[in-house]
């Protein structure tokens, strides 16, 4: 049941070491209202990795994702994103990050295309309307382009939310519970979308509650427990029971 000691795929490891580092965290900690949410988190994520962060409620998953998104600052430790200090050049770094949240991050009173045009404009993209239409086409929403988001189903809204996050072609995609509340076809559509993103060489960090689904999708699992990393392994070395034990362990 334990992870294998030796690397059974040495060529993969060699390739990993030459791939650019996207996230480098050392001794990362976050305290909120005197409560330690994250403590001594050390993490290295390379380009093209598909990673899941697992853990029980309050384990620090969302806080870690917010730190990686530069939406909050660490209390202790160092965080490098794309080789730069995340706190010194946040604006340049944010341009390379796409955030997908369990909330939509969309204006419900605006139409799908108005939302995407608005964000495309903020990112200073050339031809924002064309880019917005491309995204709507990619996520099968072109025929609903002019409808307000408030008229969309949960699945359609989440597809649009992913379109918004990918609008500026980010290198790192952070997704917090993107499958929450989706039916099976929508969930499958999203799984395929994430796979395409990874195939295109982007890095995806996923927070998900469904462990079985996660193991099927990602290449590497990080389990947070009590604000620290309890497990960090490639999925091919892990068994479902082992992850469940780590997640549930007190």
């Amino acid at each position, binding site marked *: 049941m334990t992870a294998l000691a030796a690397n059974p795929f040495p060529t993969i490891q060699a390739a990993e070491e030459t791939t650019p580092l996207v996230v480098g965290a050392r001794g990362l900690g976050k305290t909120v209202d005197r409560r330690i949410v994250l403590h001594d988190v050390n993490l290295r994520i390379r380009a093209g990795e598909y990673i899941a962060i697992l853990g029980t409620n309050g384990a620090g998953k969302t806080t870690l994702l*917010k730190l990686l*998104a*530069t*939406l*909050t600052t660490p209390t202790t430790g160092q965080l490098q994103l794309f080789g730069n200090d995340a706190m010194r050049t946040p*604006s*340049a770094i*944010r*341009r390379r*990050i796409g*955030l997908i*949240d369990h*909330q*939509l*991050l*969309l*204006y*419900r*009173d*605006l139409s799908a295309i*108005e939302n995407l045009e*608005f*964000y495309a*404009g*903020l*990112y*200073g993209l050339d031809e924002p309307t064309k880019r917005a239409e491309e995204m709507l086409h990619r996520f099968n929403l072109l025929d609903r382009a002019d409808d*307000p988001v408030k008229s969309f189903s949960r699945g359609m809204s989440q597809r649009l939310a992913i379109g*918004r996050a990918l609008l500026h072609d980010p290198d790192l995609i952070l997704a917090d519970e993107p499958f929450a509340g989706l039916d099976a076809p929508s969930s499958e559509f999203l799984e395929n979308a994430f796979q395409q993103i990874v195939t295109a060489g982007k890095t995806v960090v996923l927070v998900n509650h469904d462990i079985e689904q996660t193991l099927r999708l990602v290449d590497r699992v990080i389990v947070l427990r009590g604000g620290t990393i309890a497990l960090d392994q490639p999925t091919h070395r892990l068994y479902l029971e082992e992850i469940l034990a780590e997640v549930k362990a007190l």
Partner: protein
Amino acid sequence: MTRAISQFSLLVRKDLRIESRSRQTIGLVTVLGVLVVSVLGLGLGAASNVAGFSATAVLWVAYLFSGVLCFEKTMAVERNDGVLAGLLMAPLDRGLIYLSKLASNLILMIAVAAVVTPVGILFFGFDLSAAPGTFVAVMALSIIGFASIGTLFSAVVSSTRLQGGLLAMMLFPIVLPLVITSTQLMLHTFRDGQPASGGAVGVIVAFDVIFMTVSWIVFEWVLEP
């Protein structure tokens, strides 16, 4: 610079477009302002019992309550569905978010004042003919100061669970000097027939500059999704 102007314009147009679709803020805020003036007007017995331009204080009560509701509503748009996180992830100066929200609030407040003020004039029999320009200028400058600090505090309050009356409790004591200065200025101008003193107008402008600059600087630190 061109990029910042373009982003600012996008943010303001987005706010106004959402408001034009939902009409949640302008309708409520205008009705509240008119109601405040009407209730106070009827309660005070209108022109006969209100000495001269002391009634500008009544207008201020309407502006204050309408303003608080307006600031809360416009900031709530950014909190719904977590869209603030989307804005914060965009490569834009966070001060621009403040300035755009202030501009949107000012547009809405001026629209409200354009409705509420004539109602007040009718109720209290204001005679603006002596110095209509002074009235408009002083009220506009005062509303800028009020909206400057109100926009900041609405962002602070929206990130807490203590909404409702908290914004009014935080905001009213701080804008009190501004309200007193502008009301006294109106009194001197319209009751005593004295021209608006440069010193008093300077105080209002100073409040505007201080409120706006401080709010612009600290806005980044109060924004956390």
